[in-house]
């Protein structure tokens, strides 16, 4: 039982990283209905910006995170304007292929500029502290990522439900044409969405670096796909769903490794994706909506 709770904690903190990335994924998908394959790679760029901010500028981890978020917000806007916007009225397959192109572009431009070797995140940027409660084990980093995932999810949810921009986002995600008729500047709203989504990815990137100690140009690929699985699991386009999906996926992977066969952990994650797509493609929190004809 104790071991089970320990595994649950492990699962939650792994899931928190997925959740953070999934939040941005789900926002972008919600608004332009595009799987932004590059999202995981924006996280990677964020991790690098944080890394250089700490090592070259000597900032602390919080300033580094802020830097990373700002840089990636701008990067997100640029990516949208350059690569996605011209394709807004194209076929879905064209947009998807572009997204894959952007993803590879970010990965290999970083390999080209910085080399494929990994970088070590300075360990003293965020010293680990370990807490024991009656046989259970938790580090300050666990608490930090879980808390940030929940905190950011709540902020984001409030932002979307309460603010003017948030409401405009919802309107755009429901019907772009109608929203623009209502006087909403659709381009502006899409830019804001990309900025927020990318900033969240950057935050996740810095946390990833702090948490696991190393970063490399291809680090975004797998977490990116996993985060997408998390977003689908929770119901894509739904903010609390992304977080729940992230945590669920983290726990699932932990349980497969901890009680099943660690060799098939990733297979289980993709298996769940295919399963959820079959049984309830709209995800756990999603509602069905028909296509307009």
């Amino acid at each position, binding site marked *: 039982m104790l071991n089970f709770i320990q595994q649950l904690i492990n699962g939650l903190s792994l899931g928190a990283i997925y959740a953070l990335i999934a939040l941005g994924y789900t926002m972008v998908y919600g608004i332009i209905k595009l799987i932004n394959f590059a999202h995981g790679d924006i996280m990677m760029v964020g991790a690098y910006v944080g890394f250089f901010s700490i090592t070259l500028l000597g900032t602390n981890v919080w300033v580094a995170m802020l830097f990373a978020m700002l840089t990636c917000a701008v990067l997100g806007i640029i990516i949208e304007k350059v690569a996605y916007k011209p394709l807004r009225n194209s076929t879905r397959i064209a947009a998807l292929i572009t997204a894959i192109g952007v993803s590879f572009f970010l990965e290999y431009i970083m390999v080209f500029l910085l080399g494929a070797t990994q970088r070590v995140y300075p360990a003293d940027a965020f010293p680990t502290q370990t807490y024991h409660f009656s046989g259970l084990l938790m580090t300050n980093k666990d608490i930090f990522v879980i808390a940030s995932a929940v905190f950011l999810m709540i902020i984001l949810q409030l932002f979307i439900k309460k603010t003017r921009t948030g409401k405009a986002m919802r309107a755009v995600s429901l019907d772009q044409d109608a929203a623009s008729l209502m006087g909403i500047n659709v381009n502006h709203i899409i830019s804001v969405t990309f900025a927020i989504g990318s900033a969240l990815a950057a935050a996740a990137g810095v946390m990833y670096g702090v948490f696991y100690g190393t970063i490399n140009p291809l680090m975004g690929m797998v977490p990116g796909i996993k985060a997408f699985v998390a977003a689908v699991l929770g119901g894509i386009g739904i903010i609390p769903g992304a977080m729940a999906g992230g945590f669920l996926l983290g726990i699932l992977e932990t349980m497969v490794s901890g009680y099943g066969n660690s060799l098939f952990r990733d297979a289980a994650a993709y298996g769940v994706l295919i399963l959820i797509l079959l049984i309830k493609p709209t995800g756990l929190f999603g*509602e069905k*909506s*028909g296509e307009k*004809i």
Partner: protein
Amino acid sequence: MNNILEINHLTKTFGGLNAVSDVNMYIEKGELVGLIGPNGAGKTTVFNLITGVYRPNEGSILFDGKSIGGLSPHRICREGIARTFQNIRLFKNLTALDNVKIAFHKEVNYSLLSAVFRTNRFYQGEDQIEQKALELLEIFQLGDKRNELASNLPYGEQRRLEIARALATDPKLLILDEPAAGMNPQETNALTELIHWVRGQFNLSVLLIEHDMSLVMGLCERLYVLNYGQILASGLPEEIRNNPKVIEAYLGEEVTKVVSGS
């Protein structure tokens, strides 16, 4: 059995809202029926229910005596219902001829292997389809446009091509969603004649949604009026024209339009 289509208690809800509720309709064989109503009344939803795009929550749809409610669209098409779309949905990057050929799909009489190995049967089948498709294009005066991409055709011709494509599926019931939208009066007149002629020639029943009242009144033998997802009235065109409820429903819309400044 004199009715080609019979709809009973048809209901469809979206997220708790009734888009269509308790609709009852029938169409007799060979009849030309219109479905009218203000914007957002649920007309296209009824069409989508009949053609299987949506599944009804309640109610039955009988086509030629057979229940088709809940069948998938391609099955319903094979039963003999064909349609056009409010905002034209041609296969834009294909030629006019290919658009029609695709709709002849259920007449393909050669197997996949025949196609791969190019047997004689394949060539015969293709020739037949090509010939039929060309005939149909000629009927709709599109013969010389056969190799044009659908997206390059002028608006009116796209509408005609869509009807031709629908007829290629050999329907018993043709469903037209605002066929005259965006046409000038001259074109509308030609269309009216065309629909009349097509019905006789192909031995069809026709159900159409239309906003253009002159077309509806001149063409349809019977009308249904839909408002807020419910049948408000039905009857002969003259009866509908003078029905106070209908006038109110339409007037209401006009008034809102004026108020909202559109």
